């Protein structure tokens, strides 16, 4: 337990030193302050009279929908833009562990290799989670206090975002173990983030393709790779309190993440430094 806490603490310390944590924190704080100022709520005799967000006024019959739509926008910004930033920031945190002169010292300690890598992985997930939760819980409280709308969908969306980040971090770990390069890790992860939303439109792509084998390639890639777009749709439905058609994107993405992380651990276990 001592070693796990030390590894997680070290990741936080490095994130603080590289200004990664504080950069995220400042962005989240700016977004929360922005939210506080753009929301105007008029209360008449204890009930919502009008709500305006981004200057658009709505009658008292639709504030909940408006709040959910706004939360959905925030969740999507956080999901795509925040994720890209997190990947960019985390790649360096993983690769730095494999630096010659640092890894030997870590490996000489009575800690197993999987333990070392998972400790770093967990620390990295927690660094990003702390900021995501700060933003989501902060804006959830602002919305709740100002409008009285306290849905849990927005809170659940943060867990989905953290989950997708954890899956993408597994890719960063695997690439880091294979090539010691944060640049390659960023490129591969960004490629996944770009390709997977395109693959989400597989039925349209399949219609456009002439050969069966190319359609098979698209289907296989869709089945294997994480379903970032489909998870984004799930997040939106959770926030909007709409029924989720299928949870399959979540568990297939989880399998991808586990397999990639296992490959990273296996390679790390076998590697000579």
């Amino acid at each position, binding site marked *: 337990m*001592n*070693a796990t*806490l*030390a*590894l997680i*603490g*070290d990741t936080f*310390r*490095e994130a*603080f*030193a*590289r200004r990664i944590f504080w950069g995220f924190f400042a962005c989240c704080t700016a977004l929360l302050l922005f939210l506080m100022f753009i929301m105007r709520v008029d209360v008449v005799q204890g009930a919502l009279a009008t709500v305006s967000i981004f200057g658009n006024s709505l009658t008292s019959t639709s504030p909940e929908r408006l709040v959910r739509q706004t939360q959905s926008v925030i969740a999507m910004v956080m999901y795509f833009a925040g994720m890209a930033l997190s990947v960019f920031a985390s790649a360096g945190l993983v690769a730095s562990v494999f*630096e*010659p*002169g*640092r*890894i*030997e*010292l*870590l*490996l*000489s*300690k*009575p*800690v*197993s290799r999987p*333990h070392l890598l998972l400790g770093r992985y967990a620390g990295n997930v927690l660094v990003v989670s702390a900021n995501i939760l700060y933003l989501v819980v902060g804006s959830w409280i602002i919305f709740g206090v100002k409008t009285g709308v306290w849905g849990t969908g927005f809170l659940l969306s943060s867990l989905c975002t953290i989950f997708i980040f954890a899956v993408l971090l597994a890719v960063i770990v695997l690439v880091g173990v294979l090539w010691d390069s944060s640049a390659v890790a960023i490129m591969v992860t960004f490629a996944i983030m770009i390709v997977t939303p395109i693959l989400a439109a597989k039925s349209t792509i399949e219609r456009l393709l002439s050969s069966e084998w190319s359609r098979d390639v698209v289907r296989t890639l869709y089945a294997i790779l994480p379903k970032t777009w489909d998870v984004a749709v799930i997040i939106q439905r959770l926030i909007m309190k709409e029924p989720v058609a299928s949870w399959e994107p979540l568990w297939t993405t989880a399998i991808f993440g586990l397999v990639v992380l296992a490959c990273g651990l296996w390679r790390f276990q*076998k*590697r*000579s*430094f």
Partner: protein
Amino acid sequence: MTSEYAIETVYTRNRFVFKIFSSGWSKRELRAVDDISLKVPRGSTYGLLGPNGAGKTTFVKMLLSCAKPTSGLARVFGRDTREPEARRPIGYLPENHRFPTYMTGWDMLDFYGALSGMEKAKRRARIPELLNLVGLDERAHQLRLGKYSKGMLQRVGLAQALIHSPDLLILDEPSDGVDPVGRKQIRDVLQALEQKGVTIFLNSHLLAEVELFCREVAIIQKGKLALAGSVEALTQGSGYRVEGLNVPETLRSEVAVGARGVSSMNGTLQLMFATREQANHAVDLLRGGQCEIETFSRTRSTLEEVFMKTVDPQAVNE
């Protein structure tokens, strides 16, 4: 910890410790460590020597399970170092260490102490004691490692290796970048540890330092174990030295017959002989000529001479 050896290499798959690196697409093989059989007795001070690229660092990395042997394996106090628990009694200072620059000296010792399984209370008590032991003052405790000089980094690195009071200390160039005063301090620390029974395995280019501190050495060349033994035995020369005072000129040429070296300084004639008989004959002649005998001893080689003879005999002969 039942083994009488702190470090021993074990024979598996027809070899002792053996490591092949394959390079790139060509898959050209490089034998970094070639069938090295080594036993380091518990409580000894052992020096590992060799020219650059001889395979010393790869060998040390295999001892720590950082590098995976192609065949053979290493044991520390009888346990396979691939098991994490087997590495608990080891304190290690790597050569080209890269300590996290965002940590202070205190933070770093706390971090590596925690990884070594020490409880927080023990770490808190041990850290200031160690920082003072290696000669880092109070200001250095809270200074980020990025601001440390090379010598200070070596000192804090040594403190890191000692944090959990290890039974085996593996040091790769411990005094690299340290000034002479610092070297003496480090040597004093190591000598105190030796008194306590800690096994010290030193990988260093500074032959004089190894000769001064280590009781046993091994020399590696081109991945193979070229020579191993006690410093005392290895530096024991094969010849004899005779020094006489007030030797008259007439006697000098007579006693020098058979000598492989003759020198004279401040009235003292120094003669080097290959055999004891020749040396004794020279003593007889000197005593017969009423000369004083200042010295009669076996000649000694320096470790550097032994090293050079081992790794580059041609250069020595030339």
